[in-house]
């Protein structure tokens, strides 16, 4: 048994024998650390989605959007001739059909937004929208064909859908040959599905929503929203009055920066209000959101941890008062003021680290439970993530808290006069 072993046994093990006091102290400290862990996990999950959305936007693409005819004219006449662009436009949301799913009698209303395209290569950039967020990703054709130049030129009534849309509308991945009925201002038009592209990976929530709603037995109507790609000329033909947005994508790899500058300049000259969205702008926005959120959160956390640290101080000062006799004895048998100071600071740090351990365990349990609940009941893929870095940070903060907030009680303990505490007679 060496000095460290005796130190451990006499100080640490004895400290832990006062179960009630230790339990209360650990509980108080753990609360602050648990809030820190869960708050950070929420933020990590939120930021993950925020940045994921940004990174889903192709790096060499810029999106402009505006709903006016002037913008469209400028795009056609000033921008398109000079830059490699693709012009999209979108129509309104149309009620398409009411499909009744046989197995539980739930009435499903499918709402489809039409995105007019003038490209024929779906392995290139695909523009889509989800929860008011634009995504510009690459996909691939898995069934059928894309929209051809002939389709665009001849205004053929054809459409390309995503795989999950095919699943939702037709309960099959390969719905090539199926038709969608569109009710627009000019009446009903039918679109034949000629191709299916791979799911863009951002509409998982729709699938979850449907599954959740279909599992309910109250037979409520449910609404689903899909995006279908049709020739741009069809939009111009049948949906022009309902066109909400015109979007232009620039994806000229060679002069991307020049293209953006060119767009911006032209738009300003024309005094057209427009927005420019790119991965860079989305990342900047995400950075700003992240910075604001983190700053606010960290301020709150500092306050909470300070409060729990003050709890530690209070309990420790009481502990010192209670252990005055013990301190006097230790001093009498050879402990210096520094030894007493270190003993109490180590006790503080130990309690804080144990609190961090319990807070980490509780945090992991709470986050896993929350993830399950969020997925099951809200059909949102929002993950509360606890990373190793977060756990290390928790223990680091706990150790710092233990040291900082045990300094005062430790100094009080070190100043105890042994002659006043030792009973000679």
């Amino acid at each position, binding site marked *: 048994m060496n000095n460290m072993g005796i130190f451990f046994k*006499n100080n640490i093990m004895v400290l832990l024998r006062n179960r009630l006091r230790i339990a209360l102290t650990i509980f108080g400290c753990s609360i602050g650390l648990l809030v820190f862990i869960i708050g950070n996990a929420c933020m990590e999950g939120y930021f993950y989605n925020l940045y994921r959305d940004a990174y889903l936007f192709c790096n060499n693409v810029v999106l402009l959007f505006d709903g006016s005819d002037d913008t469209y004219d400028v795009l056609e006449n000033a921008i398109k001739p000079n830059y490699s662009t693709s012009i999209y436009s979108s129509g309104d949301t149309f009620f398409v059909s009411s499909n009744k799913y046989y197995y539980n009698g739930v009435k499903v209303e499918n709402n489809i937004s039409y995105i007019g395209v003038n490209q024929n290569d779906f392995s290139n950039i695909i523009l889509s929208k989800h929860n008011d967020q634009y995504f510009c990703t690459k996909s691939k054709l898995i069934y059928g064909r894309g929209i051809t130049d002939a389709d665009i030129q001849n205004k053929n009534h054809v459409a390309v859908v995503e795989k999950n849309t095919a699943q939702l509308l037709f309960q099959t991945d390969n719905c090539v040959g199926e038709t969608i009925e569109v009710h627009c201002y000019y009446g009903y038009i039918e679109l034949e599905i000629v191709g299916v592209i791979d799911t863009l990976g951002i509409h998982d929530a729709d699938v979850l929503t449907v599954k959740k709603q279909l599992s309910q037995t109250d037979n409520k109507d449910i609404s689903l929203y899909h995006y279908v790609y049709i020739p741009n000329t069809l939009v111009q033909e049948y949906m022009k009055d309902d066109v909400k947005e015109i979007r232009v994508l620039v994806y000229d790899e060679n002069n991307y920066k020049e293209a953006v500058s060119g767009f911006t300049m032209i738009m300003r000259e024309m005094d057209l209000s427009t927005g420019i969205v790119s991965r860079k702008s989305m990342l900047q926005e995400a950075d700003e959101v992240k910075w604001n959120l983190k700053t606010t959160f960290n301020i709150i956390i500092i306050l909470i941890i300070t409060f729990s640290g003050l709890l530690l101080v209070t309990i420790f000062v009481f502990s010192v008062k209670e252990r005055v006799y013990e301190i006097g004895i230790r*001093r009498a048998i050879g402990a*210096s003021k520094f030894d007493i100071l270190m003993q109490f600071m180590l006790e503080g740090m130990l309690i804080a680290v144990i609190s961090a351990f319990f807070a980490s365990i509780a945090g992991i349990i709470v986050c896993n439970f929350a993830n399950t609940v969020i997925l099951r009941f809200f059909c949102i893929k929002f993950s509360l993530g606890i990373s190793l870095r977060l756990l290390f940070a928790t223990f680091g903060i706990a150790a710092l808290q233990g040291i900082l907030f045990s300094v005062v009680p430790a100094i009080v303990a070190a100043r105890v006069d042994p002659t006043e505490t030792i009973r000679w007679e």
Partner: protein
Amino acid sequence: MIEMINISKSYNGERQILRDLTLHIRDGEYIQIVGGSGAGKSTFLNVIGLLDRNYAGKLKIAGRSVDKISDTEISAIRCCHIGFIFQSYNLIHNMSVMENISLPAIYAKGKRPDWKKRIEEKMSALGIWHLKNQFIQYLSGGEKQRVAIARALLLDPDIILADEPTGNLDVDNANIIFETLRELHRQKKTIVMVTHNTYVASGADHIYRLADGKLYE
């Protein structure tokens, strides 16, 4: 071993407890200090034991002046050279016998003996090895005092300071304690024992009476 030169101590500048005490205690001497309640015996031991440093005069331990040295050095001297035996034992109640006895080992900087073996030797010599895992509150007075003595002797100090070590004990236990002190005396330890019972004060090399802040032989 211990030299007290004109040691004076008062409380609040009014009540003079020790007045110009001069005393030389040689190595291996067994000194007994007797006096009534309030005579200043505790204060006397606090000063010699380096617990109370608020005094006037000079104090030397093993030829070294201890008046102006740091708290760390003072603690080291208390740890390794002085063993305390209190009347009320002054053991820590939420620790076991073994833990109480091993307490000085934490502060014995630089010393690295086989502590377990040493503790076992001390406890066996005092007949308390079988109590090693017991908590203090379950021991009798005699057993507690033997635990306190084992703790005081763990680091083989040169100086033993004892305050009425048998004050709370019955005759049989008291005799065990006296025999232990006599054995320590035979081992050439310097012993300073304080008591208010003159009947007990026997077997010492010198007996002093403390009265009015002064020592009388």
